[in-house]
């Protein structure tokens, strides 16, 4: 059984009179240990797909089975718990809490899973070591460079040992060199057996991953070709 089984999923938004079919009848399997990129131009529905897979949203139609839990039927409370235990998010704008230091930011998911203070600190430090940021544990996010902030965000995504990590344009706000090191880090994590889903509009980044899913107009495009996707942008 796959880690995620998506069957005939549609997501429909209503903007006043207008009906927007953000996702249209998508079926998709994600296996444990996959390193996938979801690629598509902006407005194609890739963010919506990520939100559904990341349990931030529920589908209008269809079923999603995530590690044995049917997402479309889950309560908000269950969804929050799934986000907490099974999913890690990495965002384009890092999304660290500016008032907390790096260590506290990394501890945050564990606070909501009710882990005791001592264990929380140990695991947060271990996660920071995994992204080689242990020496910045007491710094505020504002005192760090973009790359360091993104590494802190990755540490936060890792800390609860999730089944999947979603990265939404993780290099979008970094210079190319720093972006490369972050991608390197994801590749390393993938080698360790983590399931990683990169969401990007950039075919060069998508080229890093063994599996690519291209979304166009809310549907999975038949060919996931980096060259074609690149042509798209022209």
């Amino acid at each position, binding site marked *: 059984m796959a880690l995620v089984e998506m069957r005939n999923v549609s997501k429909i938004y209503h903007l006043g009179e207008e009906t927007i079919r953000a996702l249209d009848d998508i079926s998709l399997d994600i296996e444990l240990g996959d390193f996938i990129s979801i690629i598509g131009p902006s407005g194609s529905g890739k963010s919506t797909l990520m939100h559904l897979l990341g349990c931030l949203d529920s589908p209008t139609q269809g079923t999603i089975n995530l590690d044995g*839990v049917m997402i479309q039927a889950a309560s908000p409370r269950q969804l929050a718990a799934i986000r907490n235990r099974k999913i890690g998010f990495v965002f384009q704008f890092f999304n660290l809490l500016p008032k907390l230091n790096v260590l506290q930011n990394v501890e945050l998911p564990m606070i*909501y899973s009710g882990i005791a203070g001592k264990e929380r600190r140990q695991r947060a430090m271990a996660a920071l070591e995994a992204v080689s940021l242990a020496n910045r544990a007491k710094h505020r996010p504002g005192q760090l460079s973009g790359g360091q902030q993104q590494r802190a965000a990755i540490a936060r995504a890792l800390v609860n040992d999730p089944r999947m990590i979603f990265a939404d344009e993780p290099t979008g706000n970094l210079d190319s060199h720093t972006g490369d090191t972050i991608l390197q880090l994801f590749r390393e994590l993938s080698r360790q057996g983590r399931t990683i889903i990169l969401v990007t509009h950039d075919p060069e980044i998508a080229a890093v991953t063994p599996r690519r899913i291209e979304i166009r107009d809310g549907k999975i495009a038949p060919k996931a070709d980096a060259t074609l996707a690149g042509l798209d942008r022209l």
Partner: protein
Amino acid sequence: MSAPSLAPGAGSASRQMLITVQSGLREIWAHKFRSLLTMLGILLGVSSLVAMSALVAGMEKGAKESLIAIGGLEKVRVEAQDVPIEQRHLTDDAIGITINDVYALRHSAPLVTRTSPEMRLYATLSANDKKFRPWFCCGVWPVALEMNEHVIQHGRMFNELDDELARNVCVIGTATRDKLWGSPEELGREVNPVGETLYLNGVPFTVIGMFQHYESDQDRKEREYAKAHPEEQKPGLRARSRRRGSWVFYLKNATVYLPLNTVWMRFRYGATRAAISAGNGMAVGTTGDPRLSGLEFKVVSIDQLAESIQQARNVLMCTHHGIEDFSFRTQEDWAEQIKTFVHNARLSGGLIAGISLLVGGIGIMNIMLASISERVREIGIRKSVGAGMGDIFIQILVESVVIAVLGGLVGLAASYGLVCLIAQFAPTDNAPIVGLLALAVAFAASALIGVLAGIIPALKAARLNPIEALKYE
């Protein structure tokens, strides 16, 4: 594949609460000035609630003291009154209150314990080239001493013999002494007027006794403090307490007692030497105006007040031949007035304090709403890492409660200062009394307001859509 348990462990709830409170405190500390301003509303509400209740409690105590000072609830006064309309044609037969009523009550009303006649005199006292008009100058029997809770400090009360012989003796209060011979504050020593002579409407009287100085607890404390710390005495302070001292106590100090027969003989025209030398109480009834200005009696117990008054009414109806030219006045009316006043003061003060607490609560709600709209992103992040609606709800609610409770605690401290301030401007001289109950109620009110003010912002925050919240810049 078995899904891991999604529910947090049981022991984690309190731990999570602790972290939530910590983060609430951190949030408040991060916006020190804003939080302080927000707290101010609750602070003022709580302190005004405490101060108001302290003020009312002080007034209540003062009023009750005064009530006891004038003879307590058991005392009933009988006064002459106009004949009722249906008996108008009998007006000529109305005899007024006389000494006979006193005897009749003594013999025929078992529920009446003490009876004291009084014959009031409008008199000017002079001695030592000074003049004084006492508030209350009247002829009484020695029993008036107990009746009106008087205590002799110097000399003695006149006795039955003085009364029988209509001697020119009097017992005065400290107000008379202070006016005619000087007060201890002015002279620095206590004058004992016993043995001095004063002229009452020109008739010489010997002072044979003086009452103790009556004052409220508050006045006594102030006076003792001033005595113990003469160097701190401000010139205005003394004058103020003289001028505004509790009215009831001043009246009591401005009392002059004369033997009843003396007043009758000397000041009710028509009295003769013969009647005096005859020394017969009944005989003098034939001369002069025998009417009393009133009589007072005490009832056996306050529980039987109504029965006692009815008994006294029956007796007096008999002696007055059925003409109701008298009325009863009880202190209960006054006690009732005190109760009503205290109730009203509590109600209006409580209302004002309640409104200011409400305004404080609205301030908190306003700030919490502003705070969550500038923290939409934070809430989105927290939700994306697994915070449920409950977690966010509790977080915002705790912040609101922490602000309110801190404001409440500071308010309790501030109420002390406010109480002192109010005591300076209060319309009475009664020191405010800060009650534990008032403190507890005020504190509980602040916590409750915190909860109520936090509910709407907390709900709003908890319902934020995480996707929208993360997009928010």
